[in-house]
């Protein structure tokens, strides 16, 4: 059930303080925001999926996903997934989080954010990553 329509990738560094990089104390997490699309299995829903993966090792990660709709020139949140926290995630494995809502007309994008903890320290960056916008994803 793997499929990617369009993604935007962002790297998030995560390092314990006072620890030199390159000494096995730095992990990097990547968030991909997939373009909103109509769910193929259950038509009638827009799905916006993100995935997050980290290397080489991290203690835990959290992924957040939401769908945004363009309204009067501004992006407005219209659906939000429950945050997913994974303990001891496997390095390199992609963990998905999907926001969904009933189909409606308009221009949508997926917003994703993720962060991790390494040695008790939260990743420094947790900015939102956005997919390409899609007009009327259910048509």
């Amino acid at each position, binding site marked *: 059930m793997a499929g990617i329509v369009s993604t935007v990738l962002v790297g998030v560094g995560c390092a314990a303080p006072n620890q030199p990089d390159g000494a096995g104390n730095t992990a990097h997490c990547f968030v991909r925001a997939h373009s909103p699309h109509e769910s193929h299995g259950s038509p009638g829903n827009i799905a916006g999926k993100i995935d997050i993966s980290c290397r080489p090792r991290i203690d835990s990660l959290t992924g957040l996903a939401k769908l945004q709709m363009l309204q009067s020139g501004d992006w407005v949140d219209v659906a939000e997934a429950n945050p997913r926290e*994974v303990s001891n995630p496997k390095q390199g494995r992609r963990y998905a989080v999907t926001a*969904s809502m009933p189909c409606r007309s308009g221009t949508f994008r997926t917003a994703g954010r993720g962060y991790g903890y390494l040695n008790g320290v939260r990743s420094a960056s947790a900015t939102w990553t956005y997919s390409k916008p899609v007009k009327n994803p259910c048509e």
Partner: protein
Amino acid sequence: MTWPDVVAMLQQSAGRHGGRAFVREGVVVLSAERDGTSITVRDAGDDGVFIDAGWVTRLVAEAEDNEDEPPYCLQIVEAIMTGRAEESAVVDPETGTWIDTAITIRTPYGTTGGRADARPRYTRTLPAWPVRPS
């Protein structure tokens, strides 16, 4: 996993937890035998499955086969079956009005929902499925 694989996996899980699975095209309803509690799982294609339980528990979960842990969708379903899912009505502290909902589902591999939030709430645990006498 394909949808038929997911269906077979859910049927086995329901049996292990003393319940039954009712299958029709694209939908599986998992039901505890004695108290009518149910979990509805719908095919979501490449995104995995939609899971629907309780009053407000709705989420999409991936259905990827992993070597070292069950597919995420099965983790969620079995957490609900075993009483490790909570749903909350979040209320306005001034008026007591219901303003939001929240869920917390704990699996052996992590937590879904459960965002740290100081707003007052009423929480109930989705009842664990009754264990069938052996």
